[in-house]
C-alpha cells in the first residue's frame, strides 16, 4: 500500500529530515512509526500524502508514484488518505459539525448523505452530543476525536495519525488507540506516528523505529 525506496528529505541549510528510507507497508496493516521527537516521523507522514516532495527516492502510495504525481491528480490522492494532524487543524470558529461538513463539501457529497455520515462518525467517536459545540470549548481528547472523525469523512484507504495520543492521559490514549484499531479492522491501512514507546509495546503491532531521520529497526 505504501512503499518507499531510498527516500531522503533535506530541507534548506542541509537540515536532513529523513535519510535513505526504504519501507513497505501492506494493505490493511496497522503500523507504528516510532522514535524521539525530531526523528522525522512527521516528515515521513507528510511525504506520504505529498505535503512534501522528497529530495531523492521514490514513493508509491496505492500503486501511484507520489513523487511524479501531476498537480491535477493530487486531490484524488489526498482523498484516499485521511490525516489526523498533530495540532488537529480544527477550525476554532465553527462547530464540530461544520468542521466535518467542510470535508463533505470539498468531496461534493450531497447534503443528506453528508448529514447521515457526520452523525454516524460523531457517534463512533462518542461526540454526537457535541456536534454543535465549538472545538475550542472541547477537551484535548475530544478535539482529538473530532480530528479522527474528520479524517474518516472521505472513507480513506489509508489513515495517517501524527501523535494522536500526544497530550492525552494514558486512559484516553488507549481509547483513541482502540478507535484507530477499529478503523483498521474495517480494512483501512493505519500508520500512527508516536514518540510513546510504551504505547507501541502495549499495542503489540508492527513498529518502524526512526532515529535522526534513519530507519533503525523494525519490531513486531
Amino acid at each position, binding site marked *: 500500500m505504501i512503499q518507499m525506496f531510498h527516500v531522503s528529505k533535506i530541507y534548506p541549510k542541509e537540515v536532513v529530515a529523513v535519510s535513505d528510507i526504504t519501507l513497505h507497508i501492506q494493505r490493511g496493516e496497522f503500523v507504528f512509526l516510532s522514535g524521539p521527537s525530531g526523528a522525522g516521523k512527521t516528515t515521513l507522514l507528510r511525504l506520504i500524502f505529498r505535503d512534501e516532495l522528497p529530495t531523492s527516492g521514490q514513493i508509491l502510495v496505492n500503486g501511484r508514484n507520489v513523487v511524479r504525481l501531476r498537480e491535477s491528480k493530487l486531490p484524488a490522492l489526498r*482523498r484516499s488518505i485521511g*490525516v489526523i494532524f498533530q495540532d488537529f487543524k480544527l477550525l476554532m470558529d465553527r462547530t464540530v459539525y461544520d468542521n466535518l461538513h467542510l470535508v463533505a463539501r470539498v468531496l461534493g457529497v450531497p447534503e443528506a448523505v453528508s448529514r447521515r455520515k457526520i452523525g454516524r462518525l460523531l457517534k463512533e467517536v462518542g461526540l454526537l452530543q457535541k456536534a454543535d459545540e465549538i472545538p475550542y470549548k472541547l477537551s484535548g481528547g475530544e478535539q482529538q476525536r473530532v480530528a479522527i472523525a474528520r479524517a474518516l469523512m472521505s472513507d480513506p484507504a489509508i489513515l495517517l495519525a501524527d501523535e494522536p495520543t500526544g497530550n492525552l492521559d494514558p486512559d484516553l490514549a488507549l481509547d483513541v488507540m482502540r478507535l484507530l484499531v477499529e478503523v483498521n479492522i474495517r480494512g483501512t491501512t493505519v500508520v500512527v506516528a508516536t514518540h510513546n514507546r510504551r504505547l507501541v509495546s502495549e499495542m503489540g503491532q508492527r513498529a518502524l523505529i526512526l532515529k535522526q531521520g534513519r530507519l533503525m529497526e523494525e519490531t513486531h
Partner: protein
Amino acid sequence: MFWERLRHLLDETLLNFRRGGWGVVASIGAITVAFLVTGTFLLLTLNLGTVVAQWAEDFQVIVFLSDAITPEQVTLLRKRLEGELAVREVTYVSREEALADFRRQIRGQESLLEGLKTNPLPASFQLRIQKQYQTATALGQLAVSLRRMEGVEDVLYGQEWVDRLISLVQVMKILGIVIGAVLGIASLFIVANTIRLAVYARAQEIEIMRLVGASRSYIQIPLILDGTLQGGLGAALALGMLYVLFRATLWQLGASAPLIFSGAELGRFLEVEYRMGIVGIGALLGAVGSLVAVRRFLRA
C-alpha cells in the same frame, strides 16, 4: 453533483464577501472612486465631442446684414453667396424670424424681451460650408471676401474656436485615458490586497481544504469570483453616482444658463455599450486583482 458545486461556489463567494467586512467596503470604494473619475472624463469628452461635432456641422458662417439693406440687394447677395465655391447651402433669416427664433430659445423667460420697442436683431444669411473648406484658414479667407460685399454688416465664423474645442476634446481624451489607467492599476492593487487579506484570514481553512483533497480551482474560483463581484459592484456604483451627478449638473446648467444649455439634447448619458463596458472592465480588474493574490498564496 453539479448543484452541490454551484451551491458551494455561491456559498463560498458570499462567505468571503461577508467576512471581508471593511476590507471589501474599502475595495469597492476604491474601484468606485476610480471609475467615477474616469467616467466623468469619459462623459465630458463624449458630450463635448458631440456638441463640437454638432456645432461644426450646423453653424459655420453667419453673414449679418445691415439694417438698411433693400430686398433687391438681398436677392443679389444671395445669388453671389450661392455662387461661392465653399458654400454648400444658404439660408436667409429675416429680422422677424431671428426674433422669433430667439423667443423660442428663451422660452419661459420671454419677459426679458418686454422692454424692447424695436427689434434689435439683424437679418442674416446662415451658410453651410463644404467639407473641404472647413478649416480656419479657408473660412478666414471666405470671411474677408464676404465682408467686402455690399450690405454685409459683419461675418461671424466659429471655426477657430471649433478647432480649439476639438483639440481640447483631444487633450481631455488623453488625460482621461492616463488618469483612468493610473486609477485602474491602483484599484487593481487594492482588490488584490483585499483578496489577499481574505485569503490570509481563511488560511487555515484553505489549508485544510487542500489537505483533504480540494482541487486548486475549487479553492481559487470562489475567491476570484469574489474579486470579480467587488470590481463589478464598484463600477456599477460609480455608474449610478455618475448618473446622479450628471442629472444634477444638467439641471443646474439648465437653470443658470438656459440660453446655452437649452434642452436635453445637449447632454447625453453614456450609451448602454459604455455602461456595460464600464461594469465589465470593473469586473475584469477585480478578477485579475484576485487572481494575482490567490496565485501568489497558493503557489505551493
